[in-house]
C-alpha cells in the first residue's frame, strides 16, 4: 500500500492472460502482482513480447484477464459489465497509444474534445478545456488540422491532450515515443512530466526507450510475462 487508507490507483493480483496463436497457447502474462500509488510516474520496461502492452490493456479494461484481478481505485474490473467498464474508461482512464489512434475525420481540437463530449461535459466547457490542453502540449495554432495534416509528434501530442483532458485517475501510455524523433520524444516527455506534476495523475508507460526510462520515478521490468524487477528512483 502506498497510502494508509486510500485504495491504490492500480492493483493487480495473480494476473494471467493467455491466448491462442494458431494451435499454440501463448501465456502473455503469468501471474502479475502490482500496486501503483496515486500520482506515480511508472514505466513498464522490457523487450518486445514481454507482456507490457497486454498488462496495459488489462489495467485499462481494454481486455479481460484469463485469471486474476485488476482493481482501479479499488474497483474490481472483473465484476463490472461492458457498460460499466466503458464508463470507467471514459471517466477515470486516459490512453495514449503507440500508433496515436486519432480519429481521422475529426480535427485536432475535436479529437481532444472526444472524451469530454462522451463524458457529457457541456459544449462550451468541452471546447475551453480541450483548447487549454492543446495549448499546454504546444499545439495552440493547430486546432483545426486533421490528423493527416499533422506530424507524428504533433499527432501524439493531440493523443496526450485527449487522454489528459478527461482522465481523473490514470493515464496509460503504450510506447508513446516509439514513432517519434528524439526532439519530439523529449518534448512529449516534458509535457507528460509537467502534467503529472500539475494534475497529480498516475502515469503508467510501457517503453524500452531509455529516455522514457530515465524520466520515470519507478521502473518495472517484465520478461516472459513476469515482473523481474521493480526499481524506484531515489528522490
Amino acid at each position, binding site marked *: 500500500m502506498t497510502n494508509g487508507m486510500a485504495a491504490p490507483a492500480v492493483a493487480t493480483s495473480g494476473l494471467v492472460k493467455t491466448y491462442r496463436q494458431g494451435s499454440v497457447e501463448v501465456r*502473455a502474462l503469468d501471474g502479475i502482482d502490482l500496486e501503483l500509488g496515486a500520482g506515480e510516474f511508472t514505466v513498464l520496461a522490457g523487450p518486445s513480447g514481454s507482456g507490457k502492452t497486454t498488462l496495459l490493456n488489462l489495467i485499462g479494461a*481494454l481486455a479481460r484477464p484469463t485469471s486474476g484481478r485488476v482493481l482501479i481505485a479499488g474497483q474490481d474490473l472483473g465484476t463490472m459489465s461492458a457498460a460499466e467498464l466503458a464508463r470507467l474508461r471514459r471517466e477515470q482512464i486516459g490512453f495514449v497509444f503507440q500508433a496515436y*489512434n486519432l480519429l481521422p475525420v475529426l480535427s485536432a481540437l*475535436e479529437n481532444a474534445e472526444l472524451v469530454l463530449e*462522451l*463524458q457529457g461535459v457541456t459544449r462550451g466547457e468541452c471546447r475551453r478545456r480541450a483548447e487549454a490542453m492543446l495549448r499546454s502540449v504546444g499545439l495552440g495554432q493547430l486546432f483545426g488540422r486533421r490528423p493527416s495534416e499533422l506530424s507524428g509528434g504533433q499527432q501524439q501530442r493531440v493523443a496526450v491532450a*485527449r487522454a489528459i483532458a478527461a482522465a481523473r485517475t490514470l493515464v496509460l501510455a503504450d510506447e508513446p515515443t516509439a514513432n517519434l524523433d528524439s526532439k519530439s520524444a523529449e518534448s512529449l516527455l516534458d509535457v507528460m512530466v509537467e502534467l503529472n506534476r500539475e494534475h497529480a495523475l498516475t502515469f503508467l508507460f510501457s517503453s524500452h526507450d531509455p529516455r522514457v526510462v530515465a524520466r520515470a520515478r519507478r521502473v518495472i521490468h517484465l520478461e516472459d510475462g513476469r515482473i523481474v524487477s521493480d526499481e524506484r528512483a531515489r528522490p
Partner: protein
Amino acid sequence: MAGMALVFAIAFRNLGRNRWRTAIAGAAVAVGVSMCIASFGVMDGMSSDMVRSITEVELGHVEVHAPGFSSRPRLELSFDQAAQRAAIAAATPGVRAVSLRVRGFALASSAHASAGVELVGVDPAREAAESRLDRRVTSGSYLPATPTPWPKAQELSTAERALDEKLTAQAAAAAANEIEALGSGRESPDPPELSRDETRRLLTALSPAPAAPPPILLGDKLARRLGSKVDATVDLMTNDSGGNPVDVVFRVIGVVHTGDGALDGTRAVAHLADVQRLYGLGDRAHELALSLEDASQAREIARSLAREPAFRGLVVKTWQELRPDVVAMVKSNGAFTAIMVAIIFVVAAIGVADTILMAVFERRRELGVLKAVGMRPLAIVLMIATETALLGAGASFVGLGVGVGIDLLLGRYGIPLGGLSGFTLAGASIPPVLHATLTAEGALWPVGLMLLMAILASLWPAAVAARTEPALAMGDR
C-alpha cells in the same frame, strides 16, 4: 445520450471518406427506391385504368337497382319514378353525374345476319356526362337529345274488341287443351295460325310503331357481325314487359368502341324513352348509375343514398360490391407489386449491409479506439446506424426525385403496349398505353421502407463492432 452531436458528426464525415463506395451504395439505394416508386406508379396506373374502364363504361361508382336485378337482370325487375329518383341522386353532394338506364335483351337482324343484343336505353345527355359514351363513337354520331316521336295508341273498334275477346277465349281454350293433353299423354293441337297475325294487328293498333326508325348505337364488333354500317337499319325483336312480342326497326346512327370486347360485341344503345316505349315500361327503369367526384367516397355515398326515403326498397351498391372480381384483380396487382418491391428491397439491403460491413471491418481499429476512450456499445451501434441512415436518407431522397420524375413522365406519355393491349380482364380493359399514377403512398412507402431496411441491415455489423473487445479491435492483445 452524451456525445450525440459528436456521434452524428463522425457518422456524417465517415460517409465522405470513401466517396466511391458511398456513391455506389447510395446509387443502389436510389435505383432501388426509384424503381419501386415507378413500379408502384405503373401498377397503380394500371389498376386505376382498369377500374376507370369499368366505372366509366359498364358501371357507375355507385348503382341503384330493384332487389335481385344486379344478380339476375330481368325486364320486370324495374323501379318506378325513375326520373325523380335520378334527380334526387344527382343532387347528392359528391355525385358528379347520374345515368338512368333501361336494360333488356333483343334479337337484332340486319339484311345480312342476326345476333342477340343487350339493348340499353339511356338519357343521352346524362349518359354522356356519366360514362362519356359520346366520346367513344368511332363513326357516325351520338344519340340525339330528343327521342323519336311514337304515335299514340289507338282506341280499338267494336270489331277489334270482339276479335280481342275471341282471341282471349281461344288462348284460354288452347291453354286448357294443353293442360288436358299433359294429363292424358296426347299431343296438344297447335293454335290456329290466324291468331298470331290477328294478335299482331291488335298490338300494332294498341302500340303503333314509331313514325321513323329510332336511332341506335351499335358496338363496333356487333356492327361488324351484323354487317351494319351507319344509316343501315336493324330490326329488333323482343318481348315487352307484358310478354307480348314486339318488333321495331331502328336506324344505326353511330358505332362505338368501349375497349371491352364483351360490350362491343353485344351492346346496342338507344334513347331511354324509345326503349321504355319498346318494352312498355312507362317511366320505369332498371338502373341508376352514379359517377362520383371522388371514387374513394363510393361507400359513404352509397350508405347515405340507401338511407334516403326515395330509395327505400331499392338496393344501393358500390362498384366494389358489384364487381368483386375486379377488386380481387386490383388486389392481386398490388400483391404482385409488393413481391417485386420486396425483391428489390432485399437486394438493395444486402448491398447496403455489405458496404457497411466492409466499412466496419475497415474501421475496426478506430471503433476499438472509440470503445477504449469510453464510447458505450450502444453509442457505437447508434453511430453506425446513423451513418447508414444518412446514406439511406440521402440516397432515398434522390431515388424519390428520380422515381417521381419517372412517374410523371410515364403519367404523361405512358408506355405503349402495342399488341399487348385491347384485351379485357373480367370486363376491365387494358388500355393501349399504360400510364403511371403518382400517389403519396406509392412515393413515400418505398422511401420509408428502404430507410428502415438499410438501418436494419446495418445493425448486424454494428452489433459485431460494439461487442468486440477494444484491445482485439485495435489489434493489440
